[in-house]
């Protein structure tokens, strides 16, 4: 129906991922304004177990897709099939590693527009308006389309809340309509340790060239571990080969929006600031009081990272131990 919303919810063995709970929460709010309802689409092993969490976050209905999620093209075809039947106002994904790969495939199959990496969705005159950063967050656009719009929602942009008003959830199966084209996932190699996805982390601790050498990144890693956060890096240290490209924060790296961002020995080039300026709280530790990072830091400490950071890590650990 015209006011309905489909949410492609990701889960791991039935545990719905937080960015998907955020998308469901966002969709539930929009559906209220549009006079429609939210249907969650879940796929992969354990999909049936994901139904109750989807229901608790606003889905009135849950469809389980019988599809191999390693085959993104087949997954996209299944989602597109449901969307064609439903002709909803919005098909919403999370802007996660999977979501941002999947959504354009669905857009291609439906030949419908997609607003990527949205930070806010609203309803204006009965149509969905998507607000999304452009130029790495140096500007924002508000976009809309007539007919079904697709969107991916940036993690940490909308808090996930339970919606007690959600009605009974009914689950139904959808069979995969096609096999994927000639791209086959051959192997998945796990990281040495389970990593928190940088773009989804509530806390990000990043290091820059002021740390002098790659080995000194243990200061950053220790603080991130104490805070349960992810490690980020400036472009300079990634280009120097100290850290992997996947950790780069900024215009040619990742845009992050955590609750707390701690910049250690990062001066704050415009491209870096673009990638983290929407963080809720920013802490900067830098020797140079004139460093541009202090212009955006809620809490700046002028000082030597080698002295300040270990003290901070100890304080965080002590606070955690004290409960």
């Amino acid at each position, binding site marked *: 129906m015209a006011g309905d919303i489909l949410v492609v919810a990701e889960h791991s063995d039935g545990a719905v991922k937080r960015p998907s709970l955020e998308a469901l929460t966002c969709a539930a709010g929009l559906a209220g304004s549009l006079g429609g309802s939210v249907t969650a689409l879940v796929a992969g092993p354990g999909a049936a177990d994901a139904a109750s969490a989807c229901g608790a976050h606003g889905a009135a209905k849950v469809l389980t897709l019988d599809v191999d999620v390693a085959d993104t093209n087949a997954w996209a075809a299944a989602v597109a099939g449901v969307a064609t039947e439903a002709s909803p106002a919005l098909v919403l994904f999370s802007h*996660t590693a999977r979501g941002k790969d999947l959504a354009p495939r669905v857009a*291609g199959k439906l030949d419908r527009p997609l607003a990527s990496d949205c930070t806010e969705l609203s309803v204006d005159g009965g149509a969905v308006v998507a607000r999304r950063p452009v130029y790495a967050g140096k500007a924002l656009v508000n976009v809309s389309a007539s007919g079904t719009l697709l969107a991916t929602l940036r993690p940490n942009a909308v808090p996930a809340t339970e919606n007690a008003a959600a009605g009974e959830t009914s689950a139904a199966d959808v069979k995969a309509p096609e096999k994927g084209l000639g791209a086959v996932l051959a192997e998945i190699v796990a990281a040495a340790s*389970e990593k928190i996805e940088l773009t989804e982390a509530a806390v990000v601790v990043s290091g820059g060239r002021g740390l002098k050498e790659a080995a000194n990144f243990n200061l950053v890693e220790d603080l991130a571990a104490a805070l349960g956060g992810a490690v980020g890096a400036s472009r300079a240290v990634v280009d120097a080969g100290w850290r992997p490209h996947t950790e780069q924060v900024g215009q040619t790296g990742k845009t992050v929006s955590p609750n707390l961002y701690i910049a250690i020995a990062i001066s704050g080039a*415009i491209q870096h600031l673009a990638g983290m300026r929407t963080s809720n709280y920013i802490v900067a530790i830098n020797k140079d009081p004139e460093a541009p990072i202090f212009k955006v830091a809620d809490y700046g*400490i002028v000082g030597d990272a080698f002295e300040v950071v270990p003290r901070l890590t100890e304080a965080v650990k002590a606070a955690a131990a004290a409960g």
Partner: protein
Amino acid sequence: MNIVVCIKRVPATDTRIKVGADGTSIDETQVESIISPYDEFAVEAALQLKEAAGAGEVTVVSLGPAETTKELRTCLAMGADKAVLLKDGDAAKRDAQTTAAALAACISGLNADLVLCGKQAVDRDQGQVGTLLAAKLGLPCVTEIKKLEVADGKATVERAGDGGTTETWNVTLPAVLTTTKGLNEPRYAGLKGIMAAKKKPIEEVDAALDDAHITVKSLELPPPRREGRIIGEGPDAVDELMRLLREEAKVL
């Protein structure tokens, strides 16, 4: 091997963005342009494949204003063989769908074994055109690749998956692959390349775009952040920081 690379002319990454008079696009006066950085990885990958094979042709295609010949000339100076400019002066018509359609119409006639695009252009940051192009061409697509090997009509690629995983994909060519940082180090065009590029052809075609599927209602600058605040100097400031994080920010 015939390799086609799609590039986009974008504002340099150190540009300070100002809202244009129309309220829906940026003020482009005094803005330096560059090849979108992710596209440079695609150009470099194509050149490396051609060099390794000792044969083949690299064609660079771009949809954009007439001035895009500057960026295309740079690709030719890096070592690409020829370029096609799909000229279109109206940026408002160029959304992901119309761009992919225009590129597909051109590329379908180029007999490509492989099409490479940057994972996203750093102006609109949509990350869609490569995937949509693949859909229009009916080709397989793997996005955000950080490693690429080609042998016997097949590509083996790596990309970052969820939670720090690395995925390996086997892809039957022809295919569309989108490139990200880490794939290679794009070369600089040397003087010899710049001289050689002057003699290489850039075919200019008027792009006939449909109306955009998506309407930009407004473009605005983000709200200013709270004024920055320095709370102290040296390790002694940590106690105050902890207090603020606990009591004011409430993030601990």
